[in-house]
Each structure stands twice: as structure tokens, then as C-alpha cells.
């Protein structure tokens, strides 16, 4: 086959010529020696034939021809000329860039910031939202929940009976496990007692998830027969941070709430799965156990592993059928399977997506901006291009030169970006962003590097492509310095400015919507006065009447602190969380399984007084509403409106099924309670949720005494500085109970701000991005308008000389800029409408198309545009026609 060697030869030759660039000097030297040798031999040959030496040398040179040209041509055979000229181009570009260090530095910095932000964000995005969980066949793991339209479609976890039904009846799963994902216990360790986060799992958990112990072992099924003989697993971080990485930790005793537990294993670091749990305990869901018998008591996370090849939708139908067979479930109940990963990252998905889009927009703005600067610079250099083309450079060659400059800046910027991204990502690993799951082991991803590469390509194209189009200009125009040309050459600028402004508008609108929401949130009427309230969290060992004196002592001691006006306790935390209860009525028939549900709290007598909520009717609790007194309840205005639409609720009898981990009722009809008062609506569950119906019960009337186990304490300060109380609260409690940990002492406004931290975080980030975009657009507009105005100096000078007014020139410049900004604003507003719909989760009393926000954003961009073009415009009016026209 003669073709093959020929093809190979062609390839080898290309390779040779490419590689030749690296030994170009040697090739040149050899070539020169070869030619010198030839001339010498010809000279000798001529001398032998009788020519005098001088004559012979001249004749040899004549016969040889143009040596330089021959040398160049021969050299071009050994070296690939495009590559060679590329290196030349790069060298030239480097020289140029070094001559403008300011421009170069700013461009690279801006581009680096944009790329770095993007790469870091892409890494987070990929890792948190897209990467599979590091568990074997993690795609088969689903979390089971349910919802029913008749119950308002709220997501419900699973109850003990639900779990037992799934476990015993479902055939789609190779295993299901239940766990109580989060509860607190007091660890009386070798140091000051502290609260540890616990999770309790059924025996299937480790089998289903595939989590294995890093040290020791996980729970084995035989252990679950006797829960009294406690064994515990600890998390990697608990082992490292609290137990000092003790190598003999297996077999050590952990005293939790006075029950000794033997540590049998240490779990590996699990940043993805229940990462905040310190201690893992065992759970059984048999009906004999407390809280496990009642179907409505849905507080368990159920994780199931689908059998290979089973469609999750089929499994979902199967579970729905199982639920609908159960008594007490509404007929329209539907099971819901959520992939475990989505379950874990669900709450932050939207924020991450928003930030991702915002970061991409920032990058676009930086690209547009840098491109505008590049363009302006290259227009200034047009005479140079013209000169080069005039001297014989091809247009392609000049374009390649621009490409080299663009590529150099892009590559440098992106290299900086990668460095920044690496730093950013490792910073995020070290200081995980609060509330973002899986962030603990984020790393720079392939996708991020691909994004960087994309930016390099895109920016090179943008930086070089646009100015490249100018090369087409004919020489005559170019040599005149382009002074006389009209709008045509400004078209690329228009495109850049419009794009930049549009992106800035989108960012400003999004930030504005969040700020607007935040302002609404800040202004929201909470229904109570949190400003002077200090709160703290107490976890005790009491689940029996012994606890009553403890709590009354705590209330007494904190209430008597100098500077305190009153104190209270509750198991809920205002504006952060409340448990739920279902209500049964004594005065009407109850639909089993469809009882209305309300928020619910166990409180002490002074709860409303301490938090500053108002009594609307009836009375508040007193210390006499204790275990021996008649059971009572207080409802809020909303509950009165919904549950007792036409009658006065005060004096009515209701039964309250408290739904929580420590549920007070086990499948029995609850005691009847008399409603004694109505209080104003408090935003009990969250600041951004309108107050729903709520019921309050005196903690002394919890017949299971479970509420005594953990409570929040509130102390209202008389003075303006509630923080001063914080230390005294702890010391007053520990003066009586030295071992009692008091955690999370904060003033209520702090607690409320904390509950909105994620929202605030997103807002601050977007605000920063929007400001950056505004600043960059202002710079871009200023630069471009200055440039365009300068190009029109001669025109303005002529017009001024012919009698035009200063304000005509001013208006002319502003009109040009205004048109571009206007188009950008309209485009950006349209884009914003598309993008801002994605913000819905973070908006509060603010429409995605809020006219105030759009108006402000448009006004802001308009102002920025005008301000940025005012300088160059005024400069144009100050032209002295004589000087301007005499300039070359």
C-alpha cells in the first residue's frame, strides 16, 4: 500500500515542522552552513577553471541568486510558518501588554475574578447538587414521605405504623430503614456537660445505606432486642473533636442523660448524610414503644433502597396503595419518593441556582466590559494595523496578532481565576457556608475547569473577534486616523454596552427583589416584641414530675434577675419553630384522621407577657394552671377565626393531640381542655409565614412530663441592653444546678436574623454582584462614550465653529449613550422577568415582577448611564474649535 507511507510521511513531516519551532536556531545554522558550503564549492570550481578568486566569488554569488530569500524559503520548509508566526505574535503581544501594565493588570484581575467566582460556584453546584452521594448505588436510595390534598398538601414524614407497613408490605424495596434524624441529649462527659446531637436508627439503616464503621462496628440486628443495654456509635468529628481521637474509644462509656452507653463503633466522615449528628443510637418502631403506636405521629425519616431495576414511580404507587389501606389515613393520601440526594440538598437548590446564574451574569458583564476596552484600544491602533497591512502583512496576519493579544490576556485571567477558585473552594471547605449541605468536602471540579476553558475561548473570541472586524477597513480611512467615519464602526460598542447594561439590570432587579423582600420581612409585624428578650436553651434529664421544681426554680431565678422584668419557658421557639397538634371538638362530630391541625406550644404562665404578645380575650395562664387544675388551653386569633367561625371560643372544650417526637398521647382520645383565652397572632413558625392557627398549653399540664426534657428560656430585659443579661442567666441557673448546660444564649432579634440567615446570605451576595455589575457598566459606558466622543472631536468642533450651541453637543452625546442604555435596560428588564420567576422561594410579599423594584433598577441604570456619560459629554462642549481642528 503506497498510500499509507505517503500519509505517514505527511504526518511525520507536519510533526517535524511543528517541533522544528523548538530547534529553529539549529535549523537556521545548518541551512546557512549548507549554503555557504555551496558557494565555496562553486568558487573553487570557478577558480579551477581559471577565474581569478575575486571574480569567482562574485560569479558564485550571482549564480546562487538571492541568498536571503532562498534561506527564508528553505527555512519555511523545515518550520511550520503559522506556528512560528504565532510565537512571534505572542512575543509582540506580550511586549504590548507589558507596555500598558495598568490596563493589563485590571483586565486580568477583572477576568480572573469573574472566572474564579464562576469556577468556584460551578464546583459547589456540581458537588452539592449533581454529584452522587458517596454511598454504594446511591441512586437507589429514596426518602419516603406522604401528602394529601385534603390536608393542604403539606409534606408529612412517616410514623411508626407507616414505617412498619412499608417494611412488611412493600416489595419494591430491598430494604427500608427509619430514623429520628435529630434530637438533643445532654452528655455528661469528662468535661462540662453539653448538649450533643443524636440520631436514632432502626436496625436496617446501615444495611440500606451501606454506611460502614470506620472503627469498630455498626449496630447488629441482635442488639435491637434489648434497647436498655445501650450501645452507641459516634461520628468521626465527635471522635476527633470531643474525644480527642482516642485510639481506645471502642468500649468506652458515653453517659447520655445518666444512661451509660458503650461506644461500639466510629462512623466515617459523612459530610453528605446527617453530618451534624454526633451520636447514633438505636431505634425500634414496635408499637409497644412510646410514640410508635400512633399513625398521625409522623416524625420519622424513612429511607428505602429500591430493588435494582424498579421504577421509583411504580414503588411510589405501591406505597400509596399501602398507605390508603391503613386506617386513619385520608383517602387521597399519596406517598412521595424523593431521591436521597434531593432530600438532602433540596432546601438550598434554588439559592445555589440563583447564585450560579448571578455569577454567570457577572462574568458576562466582565467579558463585555473588557471587550469594550479592547475594542477602544484597537481602534486607536488602527493606523498601526493599516501600516502593517500597507507593508505587506496579510489581514489574517493582523487578525492573528489581535487573537494573540486576546488569548494572552484570557489565559492569564483564567489562570488567575483557577487560582482564586482553588483558594475559594478550600476556604469554603474550611469555613463551610452555614446551611449548605455537602459543602464540607467540596473540591474544584472538572466542570469548573471546563467552565474556565470555555471562558478562555469565549473571551479570546470576543476580545479578538470584534476588533478583528475593524481590520477590514480600507487603508485610506485608517490612515486618516478614522476621524471622519460615522456610526458604522461603533456598532460593536453598541452591542457590548447593551449587553453589559442588560446583565446589570438583571442582577440589579434580582438583588432589588431580595432587598425588597428583606425590607418587608424586617417590617413584618411579628405579633410580639422580640427586641429586649434574651433566650437560651436548656436540656435536662427530667421526664417525670421531679422536673417541676427544676423549671419553677429556673423561672424564679431568671425572673428575679436585676434588670429582668419577666421570664418564661416554652418548647417552641418563636419565629423559628413550633410543633403541631390536631384538634378534636367536644361540641361537634370529629372526622377521624381529618382533624384540623394547628401550631402548638407548651408554655409557662408568663410566655406572652415576656415575649410581648397581647391578650385579646379571656385570660392568660397562671401558676395555678398546674397538673391538678382543670386542663386549659389558649388559642390565637387565627385559630379562633378558623375553628370557631361563628361562636365565642372562650369556655369551649377541645381535645389536643400533640404531634411531636415526645407525643403526649398514645392512640387514645385526648383529655378535654377548656379554652380560657385568645391571644394575638404571633409569627410562630417562621418570619416569612403568615401566622396560622396556634394553640398554647401550660407546660405543667403535660401528663407525660416529656416537655420537661428540653425548653427554651426567655427573659425580658427592662434595660435597653438585653445582652447584659445573657451572662447572668447562665450563672443564675448554674448557681443552682452546676451541671446544667445552658446553650445558645442570644437576644431574640439575633435568633430571628439567624432564622433568615440563608435568605440574608443570598441577598448580600446578589447585592454585591449587582454593585459590581453596576460599577463595571459605569466604567464601560464611561470608557466607550469617552472614546466615541473623542472620535467625533472634529465633527463637534466644526459644528461648534458653525454656531452650534454647547447644549446641542451635550444633548447629542447624551442621546447616543442614552439610546444604548435604554435598549440595554429594556432588554434587561425583559430578561429579568424570565429570571426572577426562579427567585420565588426567596421572595416575601414581593412579586417577581414588582414594579417598584423594576422602576428602581431602571432608574438606577439610567442614572448610572447618564452619570458615566456626563463627563465625556461636558468635555465635548468645552472643545475649542480652533485647537481641535488644527490637530492632525
Amino acid at each position, binding site marked *: 500500500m*503506497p498510500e499509507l*507511507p*505517503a500519509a505517514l*510521511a*505527511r504526518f*511525520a*513531516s507536519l510533526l*517535524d*515542522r511543528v517541533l522544528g519551532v523548538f530547534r529553529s536556531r539549529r535549523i537556521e545554522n*545548518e*541551512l546557512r*552552513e*549548507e*549554503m555557504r*558550503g*555551496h558557494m*565555496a*564549492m*562553486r568558487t*573553487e*570550481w570557478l577558480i579551477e577553471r581559471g577565474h581569478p578568486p575575486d571574480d569567482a566569488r562574485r560569479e558564485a554569488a550571482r*549564480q*546562487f*541568486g*538571492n*541568498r536571503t*530569500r*532562498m*534561506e527564508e*524559503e*528553505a*527555512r*519555511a*520548509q*523545515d518550520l511550520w510558518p503559522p506556528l512560528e508566526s504565532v510565537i512571534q505574535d505572542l512575543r509582540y503581544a506580550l511586549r504590548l501588554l507589558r507596555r500598558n501594565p495598568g490596563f493589563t493588570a485590571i483586565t486580568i484581575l477583572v477576568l480572573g475574578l469573574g472566572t474564579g467566582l464562576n469556577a468556584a460556584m460551578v464546583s459547589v453546584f456540581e458537588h452539592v447538587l449533581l454529584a452522587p452521594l458517596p454511598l454504594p448505588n446511591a441512586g437507589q436510595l429514596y426518602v419516603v414521605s406522604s401528602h394529601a390534598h385534603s390536608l393542604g398538601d403539606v409534606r408529612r414524614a412517616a410514623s411508626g405504623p407507616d414505617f412498619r407497613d412499608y417494611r412488611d408490605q412493600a416489595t419494591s424495596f430491598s430494604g427500608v430503614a427509619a430514623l429520628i434524624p435529630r434530637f438533643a441529649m445532654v452528655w455528661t462527659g469528662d468535661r462540662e456537660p453539653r448538649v450533643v446531637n443524636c440520631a436514632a436508627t432502626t436496625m436496617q439503616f446501615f444495611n440500606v445505606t451501606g454506611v460502614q464503621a470506620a472503627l469498630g462496628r455498626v449496630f447488629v440486628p441482635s442488639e435491637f432486642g434489648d434497647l436498655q443495654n445501650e450501645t452507641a456509635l459516634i461520628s468521626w468529628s465527635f471522635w476527633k473533636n470531643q474525644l480527642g481521637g482516642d485510639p481506645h474509644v471502642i468500649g468506652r462509656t458515653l453517659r447520655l442523660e445518666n444512661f451509660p452507653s458503650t461506644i461500639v463503633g466510629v462512623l466515617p466522615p459523612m459530610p453528605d448524610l446527617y453530618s451534624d449528628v454526633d451520636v447514633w443510637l438505636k431505634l425500634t418502631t414496635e408499637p409497644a414503644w412510646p410514640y410508635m403506636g400512633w399513625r398521625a405521629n409522623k416524625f420519622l425519616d424513612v429511607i428505602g433502597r429500591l430493588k435494582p431495576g424498579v421504577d421509583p414511580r411504580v414503588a411510589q404507587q405501591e406505597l400509596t396503595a399501602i398507605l390508603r389501606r391503613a386506617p386513619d389515613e385520608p383517602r387521597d393520601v399519596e406517598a412521595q419518593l424523593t431521591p436521597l440526594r434531593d432530600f438532602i440538598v433540596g432546601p438550598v437548590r434554588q439559592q445555589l441556582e440563583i447564585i450560579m446564574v448571578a455569577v454567570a451574569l457577572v462574568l458576562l458583564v466582565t467579558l463585555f466590559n473588557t471587550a469594550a476596552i479592547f475594542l477602544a484600544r484597537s481602534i486607536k491602533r488602527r493606523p498601526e494595523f493599516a501600516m502593517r497591512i500597507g507593508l505587506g502583512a496579510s489581514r489574517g496576519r493582523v487578525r492573528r496578532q489581535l487573537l494573540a493579544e486576546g488569548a494572552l490576556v484570557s489565559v492569564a485571567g483564567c489562570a488567575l481565576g483557577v487560582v482564586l477558585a482553588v483558594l475559594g473552594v478550600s476556604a469554603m471547605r474550611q469555613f463551610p457556608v452555614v446551611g449548605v449541605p455537602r459543602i464540607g468536602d467540596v473540591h474544584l471540579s472538572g466542570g469548573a475547569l471546563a467552565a474556565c476553558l470555555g471562558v478562555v475561548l469565549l473571551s479570546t473570541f470576543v476580545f479578538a473577534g470584534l476588533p478583528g472586524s475593524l481590520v477590514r477597513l480600507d487603508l485610506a480611512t485608517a490612515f486618516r486616523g478614522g476621524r471622519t467615519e460615522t456610526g458604522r464602526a461603533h456598532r460593536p460598542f453598541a452591542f457590548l454596552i447593551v449587553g453589559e447594561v442588560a446583565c446589570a439590570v438583571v442582577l440589579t432587579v434580582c438583588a432589588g427583589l431580595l432587598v425588597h423582600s428583606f425590607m418587608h420581612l424586617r417590617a413584618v409585624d411579628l405579633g410580639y416584641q422580640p427586641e429586649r428578650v434574651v433566650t437560651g436553651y436548656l436540656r435536662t434529664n427530667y421526664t417525670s414530675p421531679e422536673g417541676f421544681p427544676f423549671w419553677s426554680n429556673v423561672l424564679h431565678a431568671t425572673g428575679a434577675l436585676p434588670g429582668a422584668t419577666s421570664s418564661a419557658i416554652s418548647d417552641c421557639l418563636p419565629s423559628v419553630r413550633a410543633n403541631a397538634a390536631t384538634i378534636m371538638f367536644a361540641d361537634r362530630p370529629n372526622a377521624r384522621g381529618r382533624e384540623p391541625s394547628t401550631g402548638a406550644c407548651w408554655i409557662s404562665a408568663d410566655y406572652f407577657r415576656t415575649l410581648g404578645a397581647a391578650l385579646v380575650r379571656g385570660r392568660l395562664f397562671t401558676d395555678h394552671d398546674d397538673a391538678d387544675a382543670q386542663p386549659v388551653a389558649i388559642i390565637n386569633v387565627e385559630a379562633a377565626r378558623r375553628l370557631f367561625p361563628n361562636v365565642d371560643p372562650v369556655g369551649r372544650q377541645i381535645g389536643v393531640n400533640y404531634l411531636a417526637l415526645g407525643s403526649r398521647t398514645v392512640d387514645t382520645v385526648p383529655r378535654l381542655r377548656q379554652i380560657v383565652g385568645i391571644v394575638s397572632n404571633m409569627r410562630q413558625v417562621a418570619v416569612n409565614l403568615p401566622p396560622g392557627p396556634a394553640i398554647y398549653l401550660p407546660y405543667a399540664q403535660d401528663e407525660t412530663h416529656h416537655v420537661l426534657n428540653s425548653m427554651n428560656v426567655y427573659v425580658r430585659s427592662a434595660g435597653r441592653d438585653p445582652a447584659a443579661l445573657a451572662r447572668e442567666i447562665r450563672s443564675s441557673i448554674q448557681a443552682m444546678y452546676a451541671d446544667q448546660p445552658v446553650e445558645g444564649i442570644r437576644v431574640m432579634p439575633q435568633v430571628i436574623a439567624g432564622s433568615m440567615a440563608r435568605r440574608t446570605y443570598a441577598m448580600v451576595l446578589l447585592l454585591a454582584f449587582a454593585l459590581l455589575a453596576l460599577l463595571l457598566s459605569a466604567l464601560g459606558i464611561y470608557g466607550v462614550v469617552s472614546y466615541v466622543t473623542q472620535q467625533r472631536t472634529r465633527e463637534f468642533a466644526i459644528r461648534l465653529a458653525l454656531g452650534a450651541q454647547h447644549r446641542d453637543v451635550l444633548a447629542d452625546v447624551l442621546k447616543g449613550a442614552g439610546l444604548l442604555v435604554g435598549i440595554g435596560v429594556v432588554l434587561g428588564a425583559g430578561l429579568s422577568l424570565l429570571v426572577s420567576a426562579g427567585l420565588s422561594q426567596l421572595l416575601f410579599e414581593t412579586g417577581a415582577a414588582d414594579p417598584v423594584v423594576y422602576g428602581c433598577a431602571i432608574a438606577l441604570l439610567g442614572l448610572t448611564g447618564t452619570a458615566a456619560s456626563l463627563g465625556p459629554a461636558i468635555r465635548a462642549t468645552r472643545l475649542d474649535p480652533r485647537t481641535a481642528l488644527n490637530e492632525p
Partner: protein
Amino acid sequence: MPRPNDVLQGTLDLLVLKTLAQLGSMHGFGIALHVQQVSNDLLRVEEGSLYPALHRIQQARLIASEWKSTENNRRAKYYRLTPLGRQQLAREEQDWAKLVKGVTAILRYA
């Protein structure tokens, strides 16, 4: 009026290949001299233009080169045909013959 220097590039390649086929291994000056002598000074190459051609042909892997000493103890780059070059020469000789035949035929009837 054609000048003897205007040798078509393709023809130059053919001449170089043919020369090397006859001489075996030879340096640039030797090739130029040979072409000149054999063609009775009819075909005279501008000698320098030999080198771009030589380097091009070498890149095409039709010839190979090495530095050797001449009989006058001068270092020179010697070129020789590769097997690929031998094949190419055969092809080009055929093409040339066809061309000549065609042109002759046209000249006869013109």
C-alpha cells in the same frame, strides 16, 4: 522569451530526484552541477532555489540527508533517495513522458 532559469518547480523536483537516482548520494552543489552538465547548460537553475526544493522534498520524505565530508575535506549535506522517493520518481517520469507525448501530439497537428 523563456529564460533558461525558469524551470517549473515540478520539473525541478523531477530533476533533483533523477539526479540523485543516478548519483546515489550527493550534496546541493553536486546536484546543481550535474543538472547543468547533463543538460548541456540548457537547463540552468538559479542555484539557490535548489535549497527550498531540497528541503521541501526532504520534508515529503522522498529524500534523506546526512552531513559528510567531501573529497576536498569540506563538510556538506549529502542527499539520497528514500524508497518513497524512488516510487515518486517512477511516477513522475511516467507523468513527464505522458506530458511530452501529449504536447508533441498537439504541436504536430497545430
